[in-house]
């Protein structure tokens, strides 16, 4: 692997793949079971150690994510942007690119959506669509900066996307301080600083009520996108070529799948998904995501968590659907835990444990496969 393949993943030697069949599903099941159990036990111990009782905490988690009126709708609403971000991450991952700047792309996307949403301000339903589209364009352009740096200047996208999170945050913060950009007129923001105007009623994504829960349209869009992307990657020529690029850039180069063209497209597309997630948060509203307006810290870790969802789902768009829901449940559930008298910050730690629990099995499997691969590559005396 030389010349044209700067991102070539070291191919696993064929020999190392041999022992990879049989009992995989069982292993996965066992690993997830064990690690989740471990996280729960650790969390329980932690709660007990700080003078609390674990049972009410578990109840609170379930109440907050599912059981209390309106809560599963809320969880769905949180799952939607997580899933959209994750699906985008999967696209770039398939092309062999590591985008970790979703948090920034999401924020920039939301800012684009806000700015153009108000600038154009057309009739209701049409403007909602425009808001979503501009969110995607914003996120895509922001990832496009990283793509440009990579394919023009050879800057690794892992670095550039990450750095652009900070830069994007600064830029949007500036925009939020300027009335000619994003800052709402004084009349619309009371005496709050740095918020945009609230989207008008007819500029929001509908949340029809079903069984006492507001079911956000954003969740439906997210699931549809996950299904579409999974089909596109598996069934279309474009998806085929993207996978080829991710798996063997040299074979791809010979076959007419240029790094620059396909790689840049994949990276920008993944940014566009993050931006779309931002726009969906803006227009979808709900308890967790501001109030149909752009505020500082708007992204609230949805970008990072979405990246985790993709990681846990191991680059399978359909698997990301339930994973996003679980992560969303942790988030909405934990907001109820505070009420049990347990120190608020402890719920963050518990959430961390659970995230780790979901990340450990893929990591263990990855390390094991890699150890085998390395053993194959090196331990043959």
């Amino acid at each position, binding site marked *: *692997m*030389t*010349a*044209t393949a700067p991102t070539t993943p*070291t*191919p*696993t*030697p*064929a*020999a*190392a*793949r*041999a*022992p990879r*069949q049989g009992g995989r599903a069982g292993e996965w099941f066992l690993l997830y079971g064990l690690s989740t159990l471990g996280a729960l036990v650790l969390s329980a111990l932690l709660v007990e150690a700080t003078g609390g009782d674990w049972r009410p905490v578990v109840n609170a988690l379930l109440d907050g994510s599912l059981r209390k009126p309106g809560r599963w709708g809320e969880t769905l609403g949180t799952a939607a942007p997580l899933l959209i971000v994750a699906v985008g991450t999967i696209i770039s991952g398939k092309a062999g690119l590591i985008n970790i700047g979703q948090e920034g792309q999401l924020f920039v996307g939301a800012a684009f959506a806000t700015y153009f949403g108000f600038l154009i301000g057309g009739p209701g339903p049409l403007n909602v669509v425009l808001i979503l589209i501009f969110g995607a364009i914003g996120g895509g352009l922001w990832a496009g900066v990283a793509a440009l740096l990579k394919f023009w200047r050879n800057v690794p996208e892992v670095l550039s996307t990450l750095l652009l999170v900070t830069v994007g945050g600064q830029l949007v913060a500036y925009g939020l301080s300027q009335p000619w950009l994003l800052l709402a007129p004084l009349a619309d923001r009371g005496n709050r600083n740095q918020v945009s105007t609230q989207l008008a009623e007819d500029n929001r994504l509908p949340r029809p009520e079903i069984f006492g829960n507001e079911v956000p349209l954003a969740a439906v869009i997210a699931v549809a996108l996950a299904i579409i992307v999974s089909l596109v990657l598996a*069934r*279309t*020529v*474009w998806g*085929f070529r993207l*996978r*080829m690029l991710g*798996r*063997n850039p*040299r*074979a*791809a*180069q*010979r*076959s*007419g*799948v*240029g*790094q620059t*063209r396909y790689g840049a497209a994949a990276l920008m597309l993944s940014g566009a998904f993050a931006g779309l997630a931002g726009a969906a948060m803006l227009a979808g509203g709900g308890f967790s995501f501001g109030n149909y307006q752009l505020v500082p810290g708007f992204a609230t870790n949805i970008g990072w968590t979405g990246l985790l969802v993709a990681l846990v789902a191991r680059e399978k768009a359909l698997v990301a659907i339930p994973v996003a829901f679980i992560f969303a449940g942790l988030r909405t559930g934990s907001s109820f835990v505070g009420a049990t008298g347990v120190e608020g910050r402890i719920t963050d730690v518990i959430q961390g444990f659970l995230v780790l629990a979901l990340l450990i099995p893929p990591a263990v499997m990855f390390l094991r496969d890699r150890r*085998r691969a*390395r*053993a*194959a*590559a*090196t*331990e*043959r*005396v």
Partner: protein
Amino acid sequence: MESGSTDPAGAVPAGAAPAVAFRNITKRFGAVTACDRVDLELHRGRIHGILGENGAGKSTLMKMLIGLVLPDEGSIRIDGESRAIHSPLAAANLGIGMVHQHFSLVDALTVWENVALGEAGRLDPGAIRNRIGEIAEQYGLVIDPDARVGELTAGLRQRVEIIKCLRRDPNIVIFDEPTSVLTPEESVQLFASLRQVVADEGRAVVLVSHKLDEVLHATDDISIMRQGQVVDRLLAAEADAPTLARGMVGREVSLRSERAALGVLSVDEANGFDDTPIAPTTGSTATSASDGRRPVLSITNASLRGSGGTPALQDLSLDLHAGEIVGVAGVEGNGQRELGDLLSSLLSLDSGSVSIDGTRVPDGRSGAMARAGIGVIPEDRHDSGIVLDMTLAENLVLVDQSAVAQRGVLDRRSLDRFARAMIDEFAIQCAGPDAPMWSLSGGNQQRVVLARELAQNPKVLIAAQPTRGLDVGAIEYMGERLEAAAEAGVAVLLISSELEEILDLSHRIVVMHSGRIVGEMTRSEVDLEQLGLLMGGAA
């Protein structure tokens, strides 16, 4: 110990426990039985050759000894003791080492770094370099420890693999097709020194190979595998090539391919070439270079600086006409790899140009060469020839999906149908069209490449080391297909480090040295002596 029921009679001192005894070993992958109740013994002080068609189960059997594959049934005894070899580490602790069929080196690292990979504790570069020097001397495997692996030729990479294996002085050494990328001289030297070490230090060696001649000369005992079973055991001293070929394939194999596979074409024979069925049939193709027809492929004054700053291609010009097979002879590392990469759109030239039918093809632009009608069988299939993590069917349409897609959507059914047709035509052994490429045996992966490149109806076909890893029968078939392609009007460029292969198939031969064409002759006027001089850069 069932006293040597599987031994060739009297070859081994009675009573000594074999170094390795496979007992009733079975390994299944889904519906495929890769190894079927195999009994096999390896003895200290002896080299054991294993022959068999592509997919016969040779590599799988060896991977069980090295702990990469676990047997479903049966047992493995090392020095008489039954052992469960769960991992390569366990195998290493038992003193077992293997040189694999496919490279597993890290291109970005240097030779000594690759050799040291996996070493526990602190690295001592000095000591490792010394050890590399020792091995180089002992086995005739000379190499620069500070060279970057990515810049080495296939032959030199193979040396690194072998040194990596030999560095820890394994008692039991497995070579899985080690010489497919070594020159005949290199392999002769390797096995001569190996033989000595084997005899002196009582090691047991396995050699898996498709080169009958090499197996006959380098080994003591020979086992032939067919469809997962050991079907024949003989002493090398009592065997001959036709018998082995028949034993492997289960039918007679034509003399010509035998000659290619055997590497038995001596200077004398080559000079008296009257018995060859290949001498250009019409004569017109051989002289086509000069008859004024427009070439299909022409490379004009191609120059390219290699990564080390030394020129990889120097002012190279070459014309290829429809219907001819042009052989590129030369010692490996004289620009052949760059020539192949250039025609695979993997390299851009510093100066010069490539045209097809008189139209310039932009070099280094992704897919341009393939679109212009250049098919390539690359010298290292894992580099740009296949995608291991995609399915067999997908690998058959890497370059062009138009036949199996409609409006940008893959038609699974027609892909499946196409793949099944190819599997039949090229006798690819696999679990089915959806088998992941990495699960195919080396020779079957090579067949996939051949099938794809031919199915694309190229104008020009670049075949670089096309028979690498193929069994005797498949080599014969490969030759037939190349000839048929030429007859159908394809211009074929055959790049090979095996002179026999070139002499066997080419109508015209050009010699490459230091990145340029230093000589050219038609098949009928070949003078082996002069050819040798040209290849050495002396003429």
